[in-house]
């Protein structure tokens, strides 16, 4: 249904927010991304999983241009990243990113963390920026902490603030890089709840995570990576069913058993 809503009057090409073809990246001699193809349609929710060192974080960091790539193409909303610095920067503004280690600015209050880009990038007035930021802080259910500093919050609270901060610029796609991996177990749920609510609202998401419960609930495509390659991709229903790639079955068994 989402496809119809956002696809009005657009051809299929622009309906596809991320279009990755034959992407290759090396760190020195290490081949971290090996011929990766991936398309993410508007409104799609893609979960990327795989063992550590499989290249999944590098892939998601390529999507907003935090990492460069050496071969292949990566189109973000019709702009090929890495060709032109100004176009790359403009395309990046359509993304919001949430990091494993939150990366909140420790010297700024929660509210200022959220308003910084609104003021300096989007050019909003002080008033406007605060209103937008407070709306998003309410969405992640933490408005009462607006005046606190990140160091005064729990990990789960910090990550929810980080999500609000990323939402403030009204991105067309949200990128999550292992958002719950640095959290204590009792805090994982509060962050996943926010992410599920975001998915329900129709946000396009690419999410690197090992939370298979989350993947089962919201993903419409699960991608399994290992050794810099995408080994398996399937609708969530099939991925967790019996038909998957042997490597992803093995991986699933390992992490579901803990």
């Amino acid at each position, binding site marked *: 249904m989402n496809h119809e809503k956002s696809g009005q009057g657009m051809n299929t090409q622009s309906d596809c927010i991320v279009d990755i073809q034959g992407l290759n990246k090396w760190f020195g001699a290490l081949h971290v991304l090996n011929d990766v193809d991936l398309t993410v349609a508007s409104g799609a929710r893609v979960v990327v999983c795989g063992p550590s060192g499989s290249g999944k974080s590098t892939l998601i960091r390529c999507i907003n241009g935090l990492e460069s790539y050496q071969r292949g193409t990566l189109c973000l909303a019709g702009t090929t990243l890495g060709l032109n610095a100004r176009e790359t920067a403009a395309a990046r503004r359509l993304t919001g990113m949430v990091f494993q280690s939150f990366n909140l600015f*420790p010297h700024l209050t929660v509210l200022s963390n959220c308003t910084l880009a609104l003021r300096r*990038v989007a050019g909003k007035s002080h008033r406007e920026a605060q209103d937008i930021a407070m709306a998003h802080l309410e969405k992640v259910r933490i408005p009462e902490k607006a005046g606190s500093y990140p160091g005064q919050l729990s990990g789960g609270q910090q990550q929810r603030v980080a999500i609000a901060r990323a939402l403030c610029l009204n991105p067309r796609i949200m990128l999550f890089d292992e958002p719950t991996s640095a959290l204590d177990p009792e805090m994982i749920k509060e962050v996943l709840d926010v992410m599920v609510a975001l998915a329900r609202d129709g946000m396009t998401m690419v999410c690197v995570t090992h939370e298979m419960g989350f993947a089962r609930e919201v993903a419409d495509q699960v991608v399994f990576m290992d050794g810099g390659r995408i080994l398996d991709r399937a609708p969530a229903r099939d991925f967790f069913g019996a038909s998957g790639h042997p490597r992803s079955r093995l991986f699933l068994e390992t992490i579901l058993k803990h």
Partner: protein
Amino acid sequence: MGFDLAFALSSVPTILGAVGTTLCVAFVSCIGAAAIGFFFEMVRRAGGIAGLTVGFVIDFIRSTPVLAWLYFLYFVLPFYGIRLGSMTVGVMGLSLYYSGYLAEVFKAGIDAIPKGQSEAARALSLSRRHAVIYVIAPQMLRNIAAPLGNYFVSILKATPYLAVLAVPEMLGRAFDIASETYRYTEPLVVAGLIFLVLALAISNGVKRLERRLLAVGSR
């Protein structure tokens, strides 16, 4: 002979009268050292031949005594026809010498900021300039505040070196009294005690500042 307390006390006002000069010299030198040190660190960070050269200059400064630098400037500048007051030369010497140390302070202050901070700034589409102004610089300032304060104390304790250039700071005044009265112990002890009290008081202030900075917004 022994220690004449009354004479020592009588020398206090004269020596104390130079506290202003001492603090002023230390303060200006500290600002000069910070400015040169910051410039050095920026050039070193940029790399290339200029960066390597500046890196070597920093190492050279750190491997040589402040007294040698003071003599160098004091005697070499007039040789090239540059005549400056001894106070100016003294401030230049302290600034140059301590810039080598403050460059390291800036380096540590920048290196201590997690890589994720500039990545988050990029992910939020902040320009390079805005990232530096709003994200990197405030955190660097917080990281360097305490070491900078400690170096201010070091510079303060180095100001009596300027007595060898005949700058009228506290040690210079003490020697003036000594050469008039042929009594060295009392004025030197008085000058030493005043420096000790100043250094301890400022160090204490720096420690408090450090604790407050750690308390606010610790991660």
